């Protein structure tokens, strides 16, 4: 399942890794200080990353 | 038609003046000898559709007053000694955020609980420098019941016009004294309402001083979304640490009160028999009543005494005090404290004449005899 486009707003990301840790599908990884979308095709659009990001830095769009 | 008149207490007259000025909110906490102001407001405000709230302490009281003012109401609080101390932090907030409000302080002895039922004039320096940081201050010091009414009205006018807290200080003697007062008709005394901003919503900047030292203040809920903070801020109201902006704003906030034009507007004094005076009694509030009596008695004895009575204590009447120091042999400052305004008089007089004080802090008013004795001792 996918059809998700995950947008990272790098300017806002502070690299806390909350999104990475709470993504149930390991879609995301840390790239030193910012988050990187590595397996977008696995995303189930649960929105956890977007809801939990304290910094308005990640958005899950419907494609 | 004869004007309406009544025999009322100073504290009541204060509340009546507030209503005349259009006050619509009172937040307070009871304390002797100011409590009657709250009692009177609790009875009168609902009649005019206003709100009265007894808060949990004096800090909450002034906080509620600042909140009410930001929501658009003319707002008042009243207190005495210990309560005045508690309010200091938020008086500073109203200064820096530039929120109009009126603070009544019916002075008693101190420090601490001191003498709750006795009069005092020992908060006059606190009225100037009580809150931390640089700031301007306006304090009015009426001496009679009639004047408490009119000065309370003027306090609201100045608060709205200069967008800041204005303090009215009187003491237990006039607060609790009853005198006949003649009520001004509606419209007889000037009542100044807050100037609303003309900026379109979205463009309003609460501290944009490009059109004058006092930018207009919008009310929350009137269509402008803006930010208010106690931090140093830029003209848009948001915090800044940019040195030049911080300094410029602080200077403007003092200038708006202390520039020559504002001083001329805010200062108010009464002068009595000063034309040829050798001795000037520099007295304010209820002490000025004894001083005036003393002037009359001294004149009978051939001593050329006169009275200078500031009605606006802050900003300090620098110019007139300096002129009187040139003219007179001596300036005597009677105060119900151990010496506060006398230091300011000394600073301004610059050794041009003798300066001496008459002090009393035992709970009794300064009497004319004491003042006369001091005058005779000095000259």
């Amino acid at each position, binding site marked *: 399942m996918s059809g998700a486009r995950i947008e990272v707003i790098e300017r806002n990301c502070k690299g806390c*890794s*909350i999104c990475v*840790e709470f993504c149930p599908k390991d879609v995301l990884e840390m790239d030193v200080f910012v988050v990187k979308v590595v397996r977008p095709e696995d995303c189930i659009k649960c929105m956890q990353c*977007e809801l*939990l990001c*304290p910094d308005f830095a990640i*958005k899950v769009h419907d494609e | 038609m004869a004007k309406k008149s009544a025999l009322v207490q100073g504290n009541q007259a204060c509340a009546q003046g507030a209503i005349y000025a259009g006050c619509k909110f009172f937040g307070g906490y009871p304390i002797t000898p100011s409590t009657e102001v709250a009692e009177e407001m609790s009875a009168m405000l609902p009649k005019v559709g206003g*709100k009265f709230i007894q808060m949990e302490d004096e800090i909450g009281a002034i906080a509620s007053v*600042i909140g009410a003012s930001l929501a658009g109401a003319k707002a008042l609080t009243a207190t005495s000694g210990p309560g005045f101390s508690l309010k200091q932090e938020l008086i500073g907030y109203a200064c820096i955020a530039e929120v109009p409000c009126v603070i009544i302080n019916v002075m008693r002895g101190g420090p601490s609980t001191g003498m709750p039922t006795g009069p005092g004039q020992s908060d006059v320096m606190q009225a100037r420098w009580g809150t931390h940081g640089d700031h301007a201050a306006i304090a009015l010091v009426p001496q009679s019941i009639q004047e408490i009414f009119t000065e309370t009205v003027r306090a609201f006018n100045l608060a709205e016009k200069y967008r800041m807290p204005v303090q009215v200080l009187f003491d237990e003697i006039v607060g609790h004294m009853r005198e006949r007062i003649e009520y001004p008709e509606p419209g007889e005394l000037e009542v100044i309402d807050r100037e609303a901003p003309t900026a379109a919503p979205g463009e309003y900047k609460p501290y944009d001083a490009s059109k004058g030292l006092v930018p207009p203040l919008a009310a929350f809920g009137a269509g402008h979304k803006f930010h208010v903070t106690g931090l140093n801020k830029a003209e848009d109201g948001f915090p800044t640490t940019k040195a030049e902006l911080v300094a410029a704003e602080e200077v403007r906030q003092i200038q708006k009160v202390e520039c020559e034009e504002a001083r001329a507007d805010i200062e108010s004094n009464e002068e009595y028999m000063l034309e040829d005076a050798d001795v000037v009694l520099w007295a304010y509030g209820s002490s000025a009543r004894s001083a005036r009596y003393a002037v009359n008695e001294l004149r009978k004895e051939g001593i050329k005494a006169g009275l200078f009575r500031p009605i606006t204590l802050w900003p300090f009447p620098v110019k007139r005090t300096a002129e009187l120091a040139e003219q007179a042999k001596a300036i005597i400052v009677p105060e119900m404290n151990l010496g506060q305004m006398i230091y300011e008089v000394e600073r301004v007089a610059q050794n041009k004449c003798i300066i001496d004080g008459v002090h009393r802090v035992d709970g009794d008013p300064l009497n004319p005899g004491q003042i006369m004795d001091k005058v005779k001792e000095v000259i």
Partner: protein
Amino acid sequence: MAYDYEKSIRPGKLPHIWCPGCGHGIVMKGLIRAMDACELDREKTTIVSGIGCASRLPGYLDACTLHTAHGRAAAFATGVKLTNPEMNVICCGGDGDGTAIGGNHFIHACRRNINITYVIMNNYIYGMTGGQFSPCTPTGMKASTTPYGNPDPTFDISKLAIGAGATFVARTTAAHPREIDKLITQGIKHKGMSVIEVLDDCPTSYGRRNKFRSVIDMMKRLKKDAVPAKAAAKMTPEQLEGKFLTGVLYHETDKPEYTEQYDALIKRVQEGA
């Protein structure tokens, strides 16, 4: 899908000042979603805070915002609300701000049952000043002023609010983001004083000192120790040891709301009754 937070945030204000992983940002997003769910007209909404990291929240939101002095949010808000009862008034701030220096105003706003929604971000610490203990720091934990462990007993903010007379009280955590907006929405819609306690994390001033390896550790703890109030009813005291309850903890609709009471008083006085 992707939520439009930006329309509620003042242009140019992001990134915000909070540290990486600080829970306050999660709460702010929940508050925005709740304000949207309630369709609050931002021109008729005043958001009031005290001083502290949490209290910086209003500055980001495009509304009437009032950043007051340490502890005084509830008292300022009371003045705003009583003057203009039509105004939506929301308070927000930290545990220290609301329950230490501002404790008196907080309990009295609850007692009056004034129609204000108070979102209190409880990170167990004075974050802004570098991690001194607050009335909510658990006993035994480390803070910069409890180097030997905190000797003080702690406040339960929700219980305090209920005891003081608030009529809608709920608790959740930053690790339960959907519940944040659900509960704040209920709080805003409730007529009377509503308190929503959101337990969140201060990785910088609390986590580090108390051997949480990371903010993830702290978030996991919030998830693990949260017990929905309904589920708790079926649990034994042993099972509840070390846990806290979440969800709506108290809801009462009979107590009169303060500004309505005062308006009724005005009417009575003006009619000369």
